[in-house]
């Protein structure tokens, strides 16, 4: 029983990280109807920026370092969108998707060149010693896990308030719904795209900062996280912020439970070596049976 509870807690806290990255994916998808495959790598780069300010060069307080890394990542995201994405016709998806794949490899190589591929230990934003936990029914809820879940909650709240309570958010939802009419009412669509990329990269970096202490920081750290996040975003519906949050948590739980229990059975023991299989199967299942995801909007239009 405590093992089940422990696996649920672990699953949810890992899932919260996937959820953070999934929300970043959804922000860009809503702005551009584009799945940004470079999201994970841009986040990884942000994770290294955090490392630079927190450990390597400046030893700033961790929250300050995380904040600086998020701001710089936002600027990086705006630049990438402006220089590499915007010049291309957004209606033509394939070239833009290929470009995001290109950005994926470029950012990965640049990070590898600057910081090499050796995994590094990174401090956690939250206390994460062996005894920093609360006992719940025999299971351990580490402060670190709790902090990650709270971070997801705060991030969701911030995104929700921006999108639903501000003029910028209204404009963002308008562009996401109908770009042409957005221009006609006087929205500067370019600025909204910049905002989407800035927010996505800042939050992606938050995800990287949260996950780095667990996975160890390296240029290849975010590639599997991106797969989990993609599965989560697709599960929730690529255009639903709340769906992405829930989807990320579901993927985390699924992974923890499937890998935890199924691999005890001999026939499935090989799953241990292929941890990406459960999210991939989830992704395929969702796309097969419910392409718009559990909470995504179906095209509603009456003529």
């Amino acid at each position, binding site marked *: 029983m405590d093992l089940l509870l422990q696996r649920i807690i672990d699953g949810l806290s890992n899932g919260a990280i996937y959820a953070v990255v999934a929300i970043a994916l959804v922000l860009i998808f809503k702005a551009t109807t584009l799945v940004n495959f470079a999201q994970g790598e841009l986040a990884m780069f942000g994770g290294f920026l955090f490392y630079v300010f927190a450990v390597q060069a400046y030893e700033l307080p961790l929250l300050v370092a995380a904040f600086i890394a998020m701001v710089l990542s936002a600027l990086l995201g705006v630049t990438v969108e402006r220089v590499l994405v915007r010049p291309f016709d957004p209606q033509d998806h394939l070239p833009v998707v290929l470009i995001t794949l290109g950005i994926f490899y470029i950012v990965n190589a640049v990070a590898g060149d600057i910081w090499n591929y050796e995994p590094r230990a990174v401090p956690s934003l939250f206390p994460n010693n062996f005894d920093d936990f609360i006992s719940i029914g025999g299971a351990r809820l580490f402060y670190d896990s709790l902090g990650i879940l709270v971070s997801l909650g705060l991030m969701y709240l911030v995104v929700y308030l921006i999108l639903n309570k501000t003029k910028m958010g209204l404009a963002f939802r308008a562009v996401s719904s109908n770009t*042409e*009419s957005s221009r*006609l009412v006087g929205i500067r669509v370019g600025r909204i795209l910049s905002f989407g990329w800035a927010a996505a990269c800042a939050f992606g970096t938050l995800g990287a900062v949260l996950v780095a202490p667990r996975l160890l920081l390296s240029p290849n750290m975010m590639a599997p996280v991106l797969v989990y996040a993609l599965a989560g975003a697709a599960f929730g519906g690529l255009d639903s912020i709340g769906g992405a949050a829930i989807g990320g948590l579901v993927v985390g739980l699924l992974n923890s439970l499937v890998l935890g229990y199924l691999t005890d059975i001999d026939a499935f023991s090989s799953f241990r070596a292929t941890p990406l299989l459960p999210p991939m199967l989830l992704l395929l299942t969702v796309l097969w049976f419910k392409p718009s995801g559990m909470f995504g909007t179906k095209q*509603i239009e009456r003529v």
Partner: protein
Amino acid sequence: MSDLMLEVRNLQASYGQVDVIRGLDLEVKKGEVCVILGANGAGKTTTLRSISNMPVVNSSGTVIVDGVDISKTDPGEIVNKGVAHVPQGRGTFPELSVLDNLHLGGYIRKDRKGIEDDVQRWFDYFPVLGERREQAAGSLSGGEQQMLAVSRALMSRPKLLLLDEPSLGLAPIIIENLFKTFAEINQENGTTMLVVEQNANLALNIAESAYVLETGAITMSGPAADLKDNPAIQEAYLGA
């Protein structure tokens, strides 16, 4: 100051190799309703899209609105020059609520109080929109969406309203009411309107002046009443 709200000179537009508009001249007086009649493919929509500089491949010519040349103005700036455009297919924001749609119509305005007053005004004018203020625009019926599209456009308090085939896909009774509403709004607010239509009968009823567009060029123009009596028009557009 001239009494012209809209002046279009030598408008040309082409998609790739295909010329759609070939040297079009157009004048709309302040406060009037002007209609452009034309069959499918005559270039009606392209004309409107060229006026508000929406993506039309290669358009050239001069567009002057209330004395200001907007030929080179970015489409996102057009509304700041007093032009509101209701595109074909209504151009609402289907996933957003009716209320959000109206607020977006007033996006460029800064007077919060005035915006809320105007929202209320359109809810009074079209009670069904008020009843469905929280509903997604895409869930409205075609006629309701057209009401919403027009209200949204008027939220920016435009000098010139461009309406692209407002009757498209609507039932005759709804079209009739809609055109009555256009005439009322025109009289109450003095908003100049340029309406592009295939439905010649109703359009000519509310319009003061009219143009006939055939394969990218104006072939006839004059007071709407004259065109209505013209046998050639009756045969081609009024089904007489």
